[in-house]
């Protein structure tokens, strides 16, 4: 076990954890932040997408020990029930979530896109979400939600 210090959603945190856990396990089992989901643990489903130093990454592929001194943002940091992020509003209004398992990862991937490109094209949205699997929606509603959040026409 080692103490790990890093920035989580803009706040400095210290957590005691084994060296060999991955970042999504650290978040869920050691910091009780259950918004980020564990899916395939192979980097292919995107349900554990978080931002590491500002870039979307698969938290299951990040060895937690490597985040010392770095910055992590998770779904818990992008909006609240009282003040949801425009993407979260759009996902509820445009049926972007069904079972919800992929939603946190979808939102983090989509937020990264909108942080870079305020008004993305449909193609740019599809590309940005190409690492995130959804087994319910067939993706159309998710793409429409992201375009709506950006104020682009679907």
């Amino acid at each position, binding site marked *: 076990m080692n103490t790990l210090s890093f920035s989580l959603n803009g706040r400095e945190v210290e957590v005691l954890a084994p060296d*060999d856990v991955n970042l999504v396990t650290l978040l869920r089992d050691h910091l009780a932040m259950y918004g980020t989901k564990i899916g395939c643990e192979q980097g292919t489903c995107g349900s554990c997408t978080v931002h590491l130093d500002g870039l979307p*990454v*698969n938290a*299951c592929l990040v*060895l937690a*020990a490597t985040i010392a001194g770095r910055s992590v943002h998770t779904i818990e940091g992008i909006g609240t029930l009282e003040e949801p992020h425009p993407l979260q509003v759009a996902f509820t209004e445009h049926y972007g979530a069904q079972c919800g398992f992929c939603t946190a990862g979808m939102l983090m991937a989509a937020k990264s896109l909108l942080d870079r490109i305020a008004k993305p094209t449909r193609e740019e949205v599809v590309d940005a979400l*190409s*690492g995130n699997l959804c087994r319910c929606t067939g993706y159309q509603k998710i793409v429409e939600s992201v375009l709506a959040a950006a104020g682009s026409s679907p």
Partner: protein
Amino acid sequence: MGDRDRGSWFRAPREMKEAIDALSDGARVLAGGTDLVATMNIRGERPGGVVWIGRLGLERIAADDDLIRIGAGASLATVASDPAIRAGAAALAAAAGKLAGPSVRNLATLGGSLCAAWPRSDVGCAVLALDGVLVATGRGGERLIPMSDLYAGPRRTTITPDEILTEVRIRPAARSSFVKVARRSSFALPVVNAAARLEIGQDGVVAEAVVAVGAGSVPERAPSVEEGLIGRALDPTVAREAASRVLEDVTPADDEHASSWYRSQVAPVAVARAVLAAGGLEATA
């Protein structure tokens, strides 16, 4: 708490010598984690130790007219978007940009992707066509490995466990291209890939051609295709004729991604497209 104070299973050295010293007793090099951590996740096994090379400053990319030097720690996302690589090693930029998906490309490194040595490695195919040279750093200093000597087979390389791949060197090439055929456009290992680098004279005649193809277990040069191109004026007929010889050079693999028959049909098409794209006669998707 600094890296120095961390337990010995995990080390994050800031000096190359410290990293090389730490690579003993079964410790593994950790770069982006997309291969090693994924394997740890699925098998539940742990290597004897982990040496994370993310603090060694291996991300740097430097280019001049004669050489592009890509730090092995550069992410695939960076490699795909770097202006010098896009201009002088377009095949590699394209291969890096098509691998897995965006969030994996932010983690995965060029060096890690080469060392993972997956069958028909996309970046391996591109670096082979670009005649890249790899720098492996070990106890004895730096060792240069031509890309054609990297693979000892699928998932095996000639880099020893106490060496670190630190840099990829590529001579800038004005004309290069990469083509990947996969079951879908993201998160799919290639069925077949192909990369080409051409030098074409003022008269439109091919002066130099390097063609690499991933259809067998590892990316391979296709000398018969190259011979079919050199000295001829490039057009679609010449490209297709030359590409049809690719099966003289490679034996298509038979696996869960595709049958050898299917690969034997697709490989000449992929090679022809790569050659035409390198020659500026066809756009790649």
